[in-house]
């Protein structure tokens, strides 16, 4: 871990975007998340790290209620987005997910053209009044996804025909197209090669300017490279949460130290 570089992780104080209070998640009988309290800031990259099965992905999926699609999953506690409880009965999860976008572990472009992949979200949310506006949104999103130059000549080709790294950037562009406020990324680079990973990481750093980004990752180097805040999960508990530089250089909890030095995990 000595070669790990912690660069440019300056933390400016930002407003709180998402606040989780005493969140517990159960899969049937299994208690997956135990009393997690965390505050995620706006225009910041927050990384969730921890060994496999520690609940970091589960917690991420709570933030846009993707766990609703799993029958046996039950969530208690409060998760506030801009001060409003997202698990309130009046909140429509469909609208919530438009505000809190998600990028998945495996690139999952739809079996449609590249253009239609990106236009999918704007279309279902009626973000564009006409074709010209839609074209504009698609181009802007693809540029933000740092993939515009590679695909601008083949927008009508299927998105599934791209390489893995391109597919993942397409998925990010697709998520960005609906103008979310928060972007959740569930191990977005685990299926990618190092070059594609570097591209996506660069992109994440770009995205920080406009969004609050939450990224789950297995790679501690990645967390160190891209995030300003890091949360360490272990066996369903949030063990430690703080500025990335602080967590990696001066962890307070012995479990965090063991994990980042490679003794557990």
């Amino acid at each position, binding site marked *: 871990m000595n070669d790990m570089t912690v660069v440019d992780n300056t933390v400016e104080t930002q407003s709180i975007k998402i606040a989780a209070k005493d969140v517990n998640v159960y899969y049937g009988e299994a208690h997956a998340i135990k009393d997690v309290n965390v505050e995620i800031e706006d225009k910041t990259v927050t990384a969730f790290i921890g060994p496999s099965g520690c609940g970091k992905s589960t917690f991420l999926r709570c933030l846009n209620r*993707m766990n609703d*699609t799993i029958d046996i999953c039950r969530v208690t506690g409060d998760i506030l987005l801009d001060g409003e409880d997202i698990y309130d009965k009046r909140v429509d999860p469909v609208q919530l*997910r438009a505000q809190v*976008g998600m990028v998945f572990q*495996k690139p999952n472009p739809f*079996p449609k053209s590249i253009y239609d992949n990106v236009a999918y979200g704007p279309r279902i949310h009626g973000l564009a009044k006409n074709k010209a506006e839609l074209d504009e949104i698609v181009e802007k999103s693809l540029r933000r996804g740092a993939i515009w130059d590679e695909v601008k000549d083949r927008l009508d080709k299927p998105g599934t025909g791209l390489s893995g790294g391109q597919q993942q950037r397409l998925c990010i562009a697709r998520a960005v197209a609906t103008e979310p406020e928060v972007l959740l990324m569930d191990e977005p680079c685990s299926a990618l090669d190092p070059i594609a990973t570097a591209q996506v990481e660069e992109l994440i750093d770009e995205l920080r300017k406009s969004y609050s980004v939450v990224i789950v990752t297995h790679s501690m180097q990645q967390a160190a490279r891209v995030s300003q805040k890091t949360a360490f999960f272990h066996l369903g508990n949030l063990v430690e949460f703080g500025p990335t530089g602080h967590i990696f250089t001066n962890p307070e909890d012995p479990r965090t130290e063991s994990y980042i030095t490679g003794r557990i995990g």
Partner: protein
Amino acid sequence: MPTIWLVLVLIALSITGFFLGRHRALASANGNSKDLHSLPVYYGNNVALTALVPALVVMAIWSMAQPLIIDSRVSSMIPESAIDEGSTRGLVMSDVRRVAEGLNIAVAEGAMTREQAHDLRSGFSDIRGRLGEVGVALGSEVRPEVLRAAQRYRQASSTGNLAMTIVVALTALAGFGWSYSRTHKDFRARNVVERGILALLIIAASLAILTTVGIVLSMLFETRNFFGLHSWRDFFFGGTWAPNFRGDSELSFLPLLWGTLYISVIALLVAVPVGLFAAIYLSEYAGKATRAIAKPLLEILAGIPTIVYGLFALLTVGPALVRFFGQGENGILGVEWMSGATSVLTAGVVMGVMLIPFVSSLSDDIINSVPQAMRDGSLGLGATKSETVRQVVMPAALPGIVGAILLAASRAIGETMIVVMGAGAIAKFSLNPLDSMTTITTRIVSQLTGDTDFASPETLVAFALGLTLFVLTLGLNVLALYIVRKYREQYE
């Protein structure tokens, strides 16, 4: 010796071979199975299979070839004079076989001794009467040529059977001896058995293909006969289906094709939306408990015999439709559009019900196989469930669903019982779904049932129709495959 005994003896030999082979292998390794190249079971199987399989193959080939050879020998014995005018050598030969068979039965039942049967002379004793007593009915008196041929036939058959028994037994023993002598601890029995099993599997696969080829060939020959007797122009381009046995039938398949397609289209109009929506509900919306109950219930529909659907069409759906669209003043709509219970609509609706489980079950599997990542991706963008189904899941599942629909269509075209009972028997071109019409399958049934003469075009047309049907469903299946492939390229 009857064949069944021969088979039993072969099986017994094979079982013995199994134990002896295993024992010998173990003995060669001094009872230590670790010294053997293969597991002891493989040595046993090797002996058992080598004794059994070649012998059975010889037996199968012999049983098929023997009658052909004897037939050609015996039929050359029959002089031209013995063949009546208007009859053929084939018909006389079938008499010969019948007499030979009758004599066999008579001997077996003790009505005649072996010698009596051998020395019978026509005219001398009443053969027809005596064979009638043992249950073999003959059309006319047995003529001396036929009787002689029949006796020759019997003699050749029994010689042949004896020879077959000997050859088969020798093959089995040779196989047994060879494999038994090869059994040794260094012998690679596992590899040999594996190869033997591979050969068995290949034989099974080629049998299925050969049967299909055989069916097509037999249809082709009969169809050629038909076109020898009837003009192909009338069949393909005529506009009337009016078979009669005076010899001036008009046999065009176009009205039948029209009826077939019309009924199939109505059936698909019923089955595709209902089946597809059911599949979407079951795979995307239904909870585990609902699914566990509803899916098997839906699949029960597929297990109902089509004749029962036919009854349903005839007794329930047809009369119900008549109550709506018929009966004039007394009917529900007060119109007189429909006179009888049989109609295109009756058959189409009931056939549609029959097809629902095909469409729904196949589509359900296909929709389920769309990766969850697709749904997550769409839901994660804030799409509703129905938007996700419509815009992501369905396009991804489309090739499979089109395949399922085409499969249902080819079933609809080939369906017989429902249309026999529900569609009526009038061949005509009509757009009115309340008219009764008829289909290709119905006409095949009616042309081949009853007292038929296989030399008339009115009967042989059934084969031409059957071939048409075959080409139609084959075409649909090829189209289904093509569509599935094309879309798969696009989506993968």
